[in-house]
């Protein structure tokens, strides 16, 4: 039985997908996400895990109408460049219409179904961002 989504890969990256786990390079001090075996900036393998903030700012976004196979049900897909403290990550924006997005708006992380492998394969859960909930001072 062939599967579209790799089970070992989905399992391996769950810390990044579920909890925004990133890696900080002890040699050059930079943070990258998702964590890789070596720092993409200086090549050092001396890394430590850090958790990124769950709230940030939408710095840029694009609206994708020509979506990958398996994503038509959620088209158009909103892809955002989100600043989380010192780090920028690319992730889907959810719970918003394209007309509601603004550069500079506050967003917060939520856990969503990123992809599911047809009818019988694995479901990949991971972080997306949504416009910060009103009453958001309570969001923490």
């Amino acid at each position, binding site marked *: 039985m062939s599967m579209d989504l790799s089970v070992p890969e989905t399992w391996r990256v769950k810390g990044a997908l579920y909890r925004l786990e990133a890696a900080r390079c002890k040699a050059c001090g930079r943070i990258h996400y998702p964590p890789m075996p070596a720092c993409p900036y200086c090549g050092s393998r001396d890394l430590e895990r850090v958790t990124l903030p769950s709230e940030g700012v939408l710095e840029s976004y694009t609206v994708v109408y020509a979506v990958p196979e398996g994503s038509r049900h959620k088209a158009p897909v909103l892809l955002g460049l989100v600043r989380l403290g010192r780090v920028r990550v690319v992730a889907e924006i959810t719970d918003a*219409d394209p007309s509601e997005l603004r550069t500079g708006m506050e967003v917060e992380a939520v856990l969503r179904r990123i992809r599911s492998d047809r009818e019988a394969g694995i479901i990949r859960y991971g972080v997306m961002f949504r416009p910060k909930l009103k009453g958001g001072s309570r969001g923490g």
Partner: protein
Amino acid sequence: MEGRPEGKTGIHGWGAYVPRYRLPMSEIARVWGWAPEQASGLGMKEKAVAGPDEDSVTMGYEAARNALRRASIEASRVGAVFFGTESKPYAVKPSATIIAEALGITPATMASDLEFACRAASEGLRALIGMVASGLIEYGLVIGSDTAQANPGDVLEFTASSGAVAYVIGPREGAVAYFEGSYTYVTDTPDFWRRAHQPYPLHGEGFTGEPAYFHHIENAVKGLLAELGLKPSDFDYAVFHQPNGKFPLRIARRLGIPKEKVLPGLVTPVIGNTYNASALLGLARVLDVAKPGDRILVAPFGSGAGSDAYSIVVTDAIEERRSLAPLFDDYLSRRKEIDYATYAKFRGIFNVIK
């Protein structure tokens, strides 16, 4: 009441979640040719619909995150995660481990999915009370979450909706509310069921009322009151399972509880029946407004059939915890109206080759 195991335990955090999308009842009536007054007869205005990237796990996760924030404890101190649902993303593979992992609760914890139609989460709650009271665990997390299914065109479609709720249960000390007692009443009553591999449940029409909902809740509540020596007038709020907007008011009347004590926790008219969240989500809304010293009666119900009744007393700690997570009404006011076609797409009612 002194000496009961329930009295050693309490709620440390509560968390609600309601998805953004709302389907007005008029859309269902329009598409399926129901009489325009059908929904108002059920006491319904509109229902909440999970988005295309949501399911019971993602909704349950957010409710649990809110509950943990209010509890203000390290996630690793949670020793059991019980997930009550009848809309599991995987038929086999626990949802509870996904949520526990995402919240940082794993690995030294129990985690399991429970099934008892709409009261699986309540069974989890009662189990956690016992586990905390015995000292087996320090804190436990119970989650009720459903993307409720209904056969398109069935009257059940008016109410079946999506939402989630979660509670962190721990010792009485430091709790925002403590338990005075609990009582469970179950029988084999086939009022509502979904056979294996079937996409939608069936129900016994009028049979879901008298021998199921009313009989079980009435007896659970009366059993609780008898054990605690309390009477209905001793409670400031009453929250019952809410399959529609009418049944909770009718069971309250039968028990001699005025409507005014039920309405603050009656959420189904504006979000629908969230199944495992239902009554416990009503309790969350009551905790959003309750004052120290208030006594709350809660009675979830699940088909098949059974009901639990709880007596809960609010403490001084509630005021400082309330603002640590979004309120039910914060989610309620985040509202995007959709039409039936969008609802059908979001909930997978269309048969699409994948």
